[in-house]
């Protein structure tokens, strides 16, 4: 990655992290968009899978430090989706809106699945409701916001001509 692209990606990443801690609480929705997942996915497709996994691990650990009872679960989930997203970047992130939306949707849902299972939260019923009701909803909202973010940040995220 060239320095220009690196700084552009960094700016987009910071904006998304800030949105996660400002817009998300302002909305206050039960199914709120996860801007950290969007940020990790956006960065992951621009770096090597190993680096993507490392970034996911760091983001996850920082996010988990708020809730120490599931400390590490978010890191594991972020690490996994970052690595996978970077591995699959040739498939996704063509200039297709639906594919991008599907990418965000699957990324968020996968994150929730790993996070809930690794965190051992609640009984089976609660986990099922979380994974098959709230997680898809949250993933859909995240996909929507991810698309909007892509459209808004397109000038920043566009790769500089070689």
């Amino acid at each position: 990655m060239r320095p220009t692209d690196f700084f552009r990606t960094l700016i987009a990443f910071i904006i998304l992290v800030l949105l996660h801690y400002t817009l998300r609480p302002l909305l206050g929705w039960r199914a709120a968009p996860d801007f950290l997942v969007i940020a990790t996915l956006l960065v992951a497709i621009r770096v090597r899978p190993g680096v993507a996994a490392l970034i996911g691990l760091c983001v996850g650990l920082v996010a988990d430090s708020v809730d120490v009872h599931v400390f590490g679960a978010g890191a594991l989930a972020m690490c996994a989706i970052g690595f996978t997203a970077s591995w699959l970047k040739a498939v996704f992130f063509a200039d297709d809106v639906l594919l991008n939306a599907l990418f965000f949707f699957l990324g968020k849902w996968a994150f929730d699945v790993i996070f809930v299972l690794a965190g051992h939260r609640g009984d089976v019923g609660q986990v099922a409701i979380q994974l098959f009701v709230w997680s898809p909803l949250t993933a859909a909202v995240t996909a929507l916001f991810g698309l909007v973010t892509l459209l808004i940040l397109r000038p920043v995220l566009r790769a500089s001509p070689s």
Partner: protein
Amino acid sequence: MPPAARAFSRRDTVLFVSCIVVAFAAIQLPERVRDPFASTLRRSVLAPLVALQSNAEQSRRSWLTREQREAQRDSIALRAMALDATLADNNRLRKILGLGESLKWGFVPAEVLQGRGVGEEYTVTLSAGSRAGIVPFSPVVAPEGLVGMVKSVDPTMSIAIAWAHPDFRVSAMSVDSGAFGIVGAHLGNEPERYLLEMRGVTMRSNLKPGALIVSSGLGGTFPRGIPVGTVIAEMKTSELWARTYLLRPAVAPSDVSDVMVLLPARAKAGVQQIWKSGPYADSAVKAIAAAGDSLSRLQARKDSLAAPRDTSVRRDSVRAVTPPLVAPSPQHEAKPARTPSTTPAVPAPTTTTP
């Protein structure tokens, strides 16, 4: 796959596996290691982000509660407005009660039933009529002084003309009886229309601004000693043999909501002791209000004695220390129809500590 690319891929895999191992290790960390580590992260990297989140949540709460706060603010403002009206009404009723206590007999309390309509700006309708003993030409008074005169009477209501009516006349004099004249409405333009004129004052009588003018009792309609107004200034007129003075009425038109109608026998007996004139006029009004307060207190005691929650022993003990209530005189012809204890707009008399 070229060897370089394979090496890259192997490095990625190793890095990924390492990250997974670290994540699992983080999950399995004992509390004594995990908590300080998480705390360090919260205090360093996450601190500004948590502050941002806190501000955002506060903003959201403010946004959500703004309508509730507006509603509360409106309710408080509404209550405050109502409180002013209640206090004014309470004050007015206390004065009326005090006036009734001072008059003792020969009066009928009445409410002014309607505001001034078109063409009847200076006429008021009273809530008492001939059944209460009111007859035409009965004086209508308020705690501050003269309001007007009953013009026509029905069984349950009566019509009175206020001092601002063009036909209203009252024989008046200065407090020291040094100047006599006829007081009528000042037929000037607004806002002077709501002033009075004292005409026919002899040239040798010179009234100073601020001098109190009371009814003289001449003519038989109005008893002597009811405050009519205070001198503002002498008016320039074409009359060479008499002076004319401009008066500020004792009773403001906006204050006329509850009045007393003096019955003929009471008017004939005189009311000179009710409104003490001269420098004591203000204190007289205060005394009237104080009498209203004491009446309220007596009524409160009476109510508390009659309350069912009191035991008979307690009632007896209270009776033993309470002075007897003022017994109604046989000459009483009426009692106030509206007292603070029965009016919700008036604070409960029980709150007045004796």
